């Protein structure tokens, strides 16, 4: 790691406290050589409306998604993107964003597909920085382009494809969408646009734990004890089996993937980014409606 980690005691109980930094830490470290701050939001011009001084912008849709196929960019495009943002392979990257870091966690997950080692989240994200009255600037992005190596994306460890989910049935699945989407009353998050799933409901045996339960009122992550109560006691995750999380397109479940992997320390968690927009339109995959998880289907 290039830049020292945040020793804040509030992170000490987490399995990987080095994955979080506080607003105080970031304020004190702005401008430190080797540190690059990245804003990643749902709203495509929120960065332009004001951002943390020196931060660069990475947009989940226009930067990280392949413009043609439904997939992430490849190693060549990722290298070009990060290089242009002034990020080297050994840079410490701190990502923050709107909506309790929902999209920031998604960007962090994509960085991790490419094995970028030191990538952290700003606990509380953009909202906490604003609420504390800290400085924002409208300065244009001014990164100096550096070399980032072309590294092939590794989808095998933290990403699940539809086929992986089918063969995973019988092991823990976490559905992080809203209760209405889980039960099948609707196919999109309340107040979100239709993104085209033909059927509604959830993957059989998936437990419903809406992603935002991991976030406190001030957008920070909830304390370890509360997260354990939600994911271990209530959802029954023991850490002994592999886990797959999904939502609608894999963004909200990136937030949960971050919680399970880095805050609770589960060592085999994958994010199914095809999620409901794939599963809910796929032919001959099992679906359960209603509030009960439903049983694992037998072969058919």
């Amino acid at each position: 790691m290039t830049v020292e980690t945040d020793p804040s005691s509030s992170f000490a109980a987490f399995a990987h406290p080095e994955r979080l930094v506080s607003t105080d830490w970031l304020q004190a470290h702005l401008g430190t050589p080797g540190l690059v701050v990245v804003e990643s939001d749902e709203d495509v011009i929120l960065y332009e409306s004001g951002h943390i001084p020196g931060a660069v912008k990475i947009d989940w849709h226009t930067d990280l998604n392949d413009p043609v196929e439904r997939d992430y960019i490849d190693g060549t495009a990722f290298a070009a993107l990060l290089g242009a943002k002034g990020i080297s392979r050994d840079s410490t990257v701190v990502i923050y964003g709107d909506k309790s870091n929902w999209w920031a966690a998604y960007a962090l997950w994509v960085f991790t597909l490419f094995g970028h080692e030191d990538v952290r989240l700003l606990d509380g994200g953009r909202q906490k920085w604003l609420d504390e009255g800290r400085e924002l600037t409208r300065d244009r992005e001014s990164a100096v382009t550096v070399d980032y190596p072309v590294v092939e994306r590794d989808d095998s460890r933290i990403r699940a494809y539809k086929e992986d989910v089918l063969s995973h049935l019988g092991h823990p699945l976490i559905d992080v969408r809203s209760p209405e989407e889980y039960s099948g009353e609707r196919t999109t998050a309340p107040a979100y646009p239709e993104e085209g799933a033909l059927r509604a409901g959830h993957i059989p045996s998936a437990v419903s734990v809406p992603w935002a339960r991991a976030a406190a009122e001030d957008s920070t992550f909830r304390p370890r004890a509360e997260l354990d109560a939600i994911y271990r006691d209530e959802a029954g995750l023991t850490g002994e089996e592999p886990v797959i999380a999904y939502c609608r397109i894999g963004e909200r479940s990136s937030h949960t993937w971050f919680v399970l992997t880095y805050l609770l320390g589960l060592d085999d968690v994958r994010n199914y980014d095809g999620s409901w927009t794939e599963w809910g339109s796929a032919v001959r995959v099992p679906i359960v409606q209603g509030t009960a998880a439903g049983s694992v289907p037998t072969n058919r």
Partner: protein
Amino acid sequence: MTDTDLPGQLAEIREDFLALEQPDRLQLLLEFSNELPALPERYQDHPDLFERVVECQSPVFIFVEVDADKAVHLYATAPAESPTTRGFASILAQGLDGLSVAEVLAVPDDFPQTIGLTQAVSPLRLRGMTAMLGRTKRQLRERTLA
């Protein structure tokens, strides 16, 4: 419809966007966002008049007025932390303001796809503006039938 019969103020907005490089188009969208007018006082206490544009990712509400001179005015509210949605509403509020009902109804439904934002903003997000235009036209049709 060709460029020449798009109402002048909408054609001007489109030309302004198309004249810019991609990153500058986002800056212009932000300028529109900052220019979204506040509601006139007479509508400030009338949330009942406003219709939610559910296709947008953030809470945006619109209300279409036809004044005594038969001119159309679009009013919208959207939160400050959703500048993209505010920008979309502001483009339509400015672009449609003062047009006749017939002129607004004749605006092509794909106007949002023609102003050079598809690549900069993404087609998914642009759907919000398309929905706003569609709902504006539907309100006008209902208003003029009544």
